[in-house]
């Protein structure tokens, strides 16, 4: 019991349970297996963006270009796919990863090696990637009949009555948790985020770690672009607009610190579940759908406030225990 209570995301779990209870009372229709699966499927794209964003946030950076990377990779994959229907769909998955890696590598190069502030650098690339997505698409839309079945299967095919996109999301979750928790490179990301100088003294190359974080984030954003188009069977240059803010919001709900060094993959998972429940919950309530953005904004502010208050009180307790405070 003590071990459970000492779990660092316990507050988040309680928040999630509270939300689910509230949802169960007010909108019981949310709690059928099919409704839950469709809710998670609609929000699955955010998983990839949020995990990538978390890794960048842990280094103390921020990536505003993920929404545009998503659009760019979605447009490239869909446009090529619609003219080359006979190519196996796995090619498009790999292509989307490559596009994402290129986009992320450019961000990482500018931030890591040229030492530009992440916020400004990715603000610039956000414009650039979105512009390229428009150029390559020529403003065109792609509709379901233009998108081949094997391509759609990557997101929609049901395996053990759960769509493929959720399985892929689960794999990414586990891989990310393993990478961030047990791999040397993953731990280096935390080291850079916690204290750059001591990490450098310990022989960690700051530029390389930042570069890696942005490349992973970009790769996941690229993958999400392909899966987005496969999931909704729709594509245009403006997909994923504002998703970067959603991803950041999920990370913050999941207890990732914006100043770096703090954040776990399981926290992001809980944050994502909470955000999915909130959006679905609001859309099910009559007349509340226009309230969605306002409520999300309030929820994030409250979540960050609680997060900061808890960190401060634990720091104070720590100091008191050492006798540093009267």
């Amino acid at each position, binding site marked *: 019991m003590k071990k459970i209570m000492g779990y660092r995301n316990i507050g988040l779990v309680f928040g999630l349970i509270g939300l689910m209870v509230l949802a169960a009372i007010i909108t019981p229709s949310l709690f059928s297996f099919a409704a839950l699966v469709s809710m998670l499927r609609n929000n699955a794209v955010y998983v990839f963006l949020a995990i990538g964003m978390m890794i960048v946030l842990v280094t103390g950076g921020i990536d505003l270009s993920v929404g545009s990377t998503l659009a760019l990779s979605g447009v490239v994959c869909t446009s090529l796919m619609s003219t080359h229907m006979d190519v196996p769909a796995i090619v498009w998955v790999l292509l989307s990863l490559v596009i994402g890696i290129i986009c992320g590598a450019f961000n990482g190069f500018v931030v890591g090696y040229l030492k530009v502030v992440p916020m400004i650098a990715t603000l610039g690339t956000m*414009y650039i990637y979105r512009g390229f997505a428009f150029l390559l698409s020529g403003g065109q839309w792609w509709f379901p009949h233009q998108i081949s079945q094997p391509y759609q299967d990557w997101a929609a095919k049901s395996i053990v009555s759960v769509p493929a996109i959720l399985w892929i999301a689960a794999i990414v979750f586990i891989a990310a948790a393993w990478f961030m928790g047990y791999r040397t490179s993953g731990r280096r990301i935390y080291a850079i985020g916690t204290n750059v100088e001591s990490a450098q003294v310990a022989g960690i190359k700051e530029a390389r770690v930042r570069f890696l974080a942005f490349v992973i984030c970009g790769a996941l954003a690229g993958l999400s672009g392909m899966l987005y188009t496969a999931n909704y069977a729709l594509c245009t240059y403006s997909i994923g607009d504002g998703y970067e*803010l959603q991803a950041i919001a999920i990370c913050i709900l999941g207890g990732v610190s914006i100043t770096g060094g703090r954040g776990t993959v399981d926290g992001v998972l809980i944050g994502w579940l909470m955000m999915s429940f909130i959006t679905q919950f609001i859309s099910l309530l009559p007349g509340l759908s226009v309230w969605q953005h306002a409520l*999300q904004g309030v929820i994030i502010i409250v979540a960050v406030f609680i997060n*900061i208050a808890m960190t401060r009180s634990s720091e104070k307790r720590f100091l008191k225990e050492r006798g540093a405070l009267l």
Partner: protein
Amino acid sequence: MAGENKGTVRDLTVKDSFQLSKFLVKWEMMLVYILILINVILAVARPGLYFNIATIQSIIQSGLDLSPMVMGMVFILLLGDIDVSIASEMVLSGMVTGILCDKGMPVIVAVLAGILTGAVCGAFNGVLVGYVKMPAVIVTISTSMLFRGIVEIVLDVNSLKNFPAFYNAIGWKNIGILPICLILYAVITVIFYFILHRSTFGRQLYIVGNNPTTATYSGIRVERLKLIVFIIMGVMAGIGSIFFVGRMGGGLSSSMGTGYEMDVIAICVLGGVSTNGGKGKVYGPFIATFIMAFLLYTLGLVGVDANTRKIVTGIVLLIAVLIPNLNKQFLADIRGKFASK
């Protein structure tokens, strides 16, 4: 910071005599060169259009709809903070004005209420950033959702069309040969110049931006300063709504002005304001506003569409932040070489 300490007992800054060579390679002068270059390109490419006062007027008018917010953002960036909620603040305060005009309130009340709304929004950000000490990025991202959410709740899919007549004049009319918005922007810039470069408050901004801890220990109330700066930003967003709605032909709906915050930040960075805080001047962004206006208009004339112009905005932004960085590294490398010899 080779700034001037005005009216102090002991002037500790070393005052260089005016050097023409140094003056000519300053960042602000670079901006002037770029602006002249764009003008020359425009004049050569479309001589028929360029040598026509109406063209120049319309270029300036098209680029100045976000100008008041640029000045507010300079202060925010000087503190090392950032505010991405300004577009939402702008739409919210425009909405308040529009609704009050619909209700038949006197124009002056409606406009002041709009600006006051901006100030309240700014104060909300300022309290959270200054006193609760939440990161400015997070606060303003969520308040941008919140403010725009409020507009969505109130307006839903409707739009407001009832705005005071002078809104349109600001967006489209000229006094003599000068566009009204240009005159107003110049006035705003002069006011901000005096606040930033000629007052104690302005010097405090630089100190807080360079080192908040030092500022606290030297008796500056950092929390209050941040609150004031965010309120100023809110007021400027409120004034910005006048420019914006005027430019949009006197209509407002909930989805308008998305992405303006990014444009404003881009202009500030291009104008030499560092996002790390503590570095930047008022006249850099002033010139940069015109660079962006002329650049985007020129591209439009050449036949580049609005979405592709985003690429140019992005590249300009990246280059603007890269040049000082590379320059610094380049100089450091040279010094390192000399030191090793």
